[in-house]
């Protein structure tokens, strides 16, 4: 798999599955405006159409035949069609598959994540905003103008909260290397830990911001693994959902405190014990980043 930088870069050539739908078409336009190379789209039955000048095909294989250099697929297909669409992309060996769609049944996600892993392909999402390397490429739905090129990598379970924090960093003059929206579902392709590892290995990234939320134990596991790491990059974090009641799903399928675990308190405690500062307010992230160097390096 030839992925330089983190997941996406200026060699990223994108296929959009579900390109003729409302979201697919809008975001194709927005990705093109950002300078991302969207080279083909697929919607079964819509062969011959063009969306923003991008040719539409009936199948992924036809799109690959048209442009063999396609190396990323972004999915906007309806939730019920995601499973099949991922198999189709995986069978054409597209190395990076980004699932934007929300409300994908979790058993579908389990199957496609497993299928892709067997083929050595990477899934990001579902229910995620995608990946952006400011100035290079935007593969997803984030508003590009809120981001700026720089050295801070971001990993987040939440879309709009990523935009919120990225724009506050941008205003503070702190640019970003790559922001990875891993998605708000209980089962996702690229995990919190995997995403952080990519940024840890990325020469363009000097510091890392992680944005977690209630539910599951990804933040705790990340904290435990980082506590053992030597020479790690400085990291700061934010955890959403301190005021969330137990047992209720807060918007994201994965954001639920169940059986007393997955609370923001536990996550905050685990992160702090691993030496990772946790911001009380989203706006504190930039200050914590500025002061993180001396402490962590």
């Amino acid at each position, binding site marked *: 798999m030839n992925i330089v930088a983190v997941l996406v870069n200026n060699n990223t050539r994108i296929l959009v599955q579900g390109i003729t739908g409302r979201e697919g078409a809008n975001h194709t336009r927005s990705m093109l405006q950002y300078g991302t190379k969207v080279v083909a789209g697929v919607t079964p039955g819509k062969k011959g159409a063009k969306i923003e000048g991008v040719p539409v095909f009936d199948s992924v294989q036809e799109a690959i035949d048209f442009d063999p250099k396609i190396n990323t697929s972004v999915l906007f297909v309806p939730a019920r069609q995601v499973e099949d669409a991922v198999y189709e992309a995986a069978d054409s060996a597209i190395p990076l598959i980004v699932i934007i769609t929300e409300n994908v049944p979790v058993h579908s996600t389990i199957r496609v994540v497993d299928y892709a892993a067997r083929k050595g392909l990477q899934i990001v999402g579902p229910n995620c905003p995608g990946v952006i390397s400011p100035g290079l490429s935007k593969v997803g739905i984030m508003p590009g103008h*809120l981001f700026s090129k720089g050295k801070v990598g971001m990993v987040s379970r939440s879309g709009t*909260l990523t935009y919120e924090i990225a724009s506050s960093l941008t205003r503070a003059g702190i640019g970003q290397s790559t922001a990875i929206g891993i998605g708000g579902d209980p089962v996702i*392709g690229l995990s919190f830990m995997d995403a952080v590892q990519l940024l840890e290995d990325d020469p363009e990234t000097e510091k890392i911001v992680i944005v977690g939320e209630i539910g599951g134990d990804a933040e705790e596991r990340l904290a435990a693994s980082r506590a053992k790491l030597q020479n790690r990059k400085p990291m700061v974090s934010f955890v959403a959902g301190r*005021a969330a009641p137990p047992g209720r799903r*807060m918007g994201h399928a994965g954001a639920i405190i169940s059986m007393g675990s997955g609370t923001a308190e536990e996550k905050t405690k685990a992160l702090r014990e691993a030496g990772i500062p946790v911001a009380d307010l989203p706006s504190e992230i930039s200050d914590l980043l500025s002061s993180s160097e001396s402490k962590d390096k």
Partner: protein
Amino acid sequence: MKIHEHTAKDLFEAEGIAVPKRYVANTTSEAEEAALKIAGAVVVKAQILVAGRGKAGAILKANGKEETSKAARQLLGAIFRGATVSSVLVEEQLSISKEFYLGFAIERASKKAIMIASEEGGVDLEETARSRPTAILRILLDPLLGLRTYQARLAGKALNIPTPALASFIGICQRMYKIFVENDCELLESNPLALTKSSQLVALDARMVIDDNASYKHPEHGEGTEELTPRESSAKQMGLSFVELDGDVGIIGNGAGLVMATLDLVAHHGAKAANFLDVGGGAQAEQVKAAVQLIVKLPNVKVILLNIMGGITRCDEVAMGVVQAFTETGSKLPIVSRLVGTREEEGQRILSEAGIEMTKSMELAAKKAVSLLK
């Protein structure tokens, strides 16, 4: 979406898993009839969707028509942990020699389904997990291959299932896994799975939770609105992600994480949110209007806090929806708004013209909203 015990047991039975003889009763006379048909000791179980029914007193033992009638009368209409009992399950009591736990769930970390089994059934699994974690067996399941026979056999051995019942145990594991996958379950458990004195394995309880994202595949289980408040049900139909809470600051935002962070900010300033409401990505004016109307009608709300970080969501659409809702409802509730992102100038202009106050950041907005409570 949680499924009632009696429905889950019907699915178990259809798949060939032994379950006790049982009847659903909506009235005391139906419960009496059931007692007569079963003719022997029974258990009367409230059909509610909350866990821990035994501890809450929602499961009663009875023998004969009179006692069953009394138990049913006691349970029907009663409220346990917020759930009102509208039906009971009258079930034959069996002579049990041992109780096990058997369940299937989704494990986030491994991104797979797992089988969970324990020799210590009939008790709270979380309690066992805390006190004796080694008493719980977790087996990772391959999504392509499913549960392998040897995995079920090893689990049976580890649980000390008597040899004559081992084949039956393996069959139950495989059938439960089949139900788990075919019904898109987040959780399927039998606690206890009991070994009777006649060496038969019987699912004495059945708990089933279906993935909300897959409920469209299983219309037979309804819409899953039983546990929601009436307002939450109607919000769900409008495609809004809405949870009622007990504070007095009404919250409207876009994106689950941002809305959660907004709730946190309100708490940070010493107040409580009245709700969680995510209008979703790319919300149109119509949807925002419905959201505002919903919040305006919440009885506790004293101030509304609007927090929009427009990406695919357009600020002008949001602003139009807000203004329309206020015009139509004639609400005089104070509203503090923070509206940035796509088409923010237009959106901010629409709100200013309607006399709605704007703040520069979500933190200032939360602070301002809380200050208006006083």
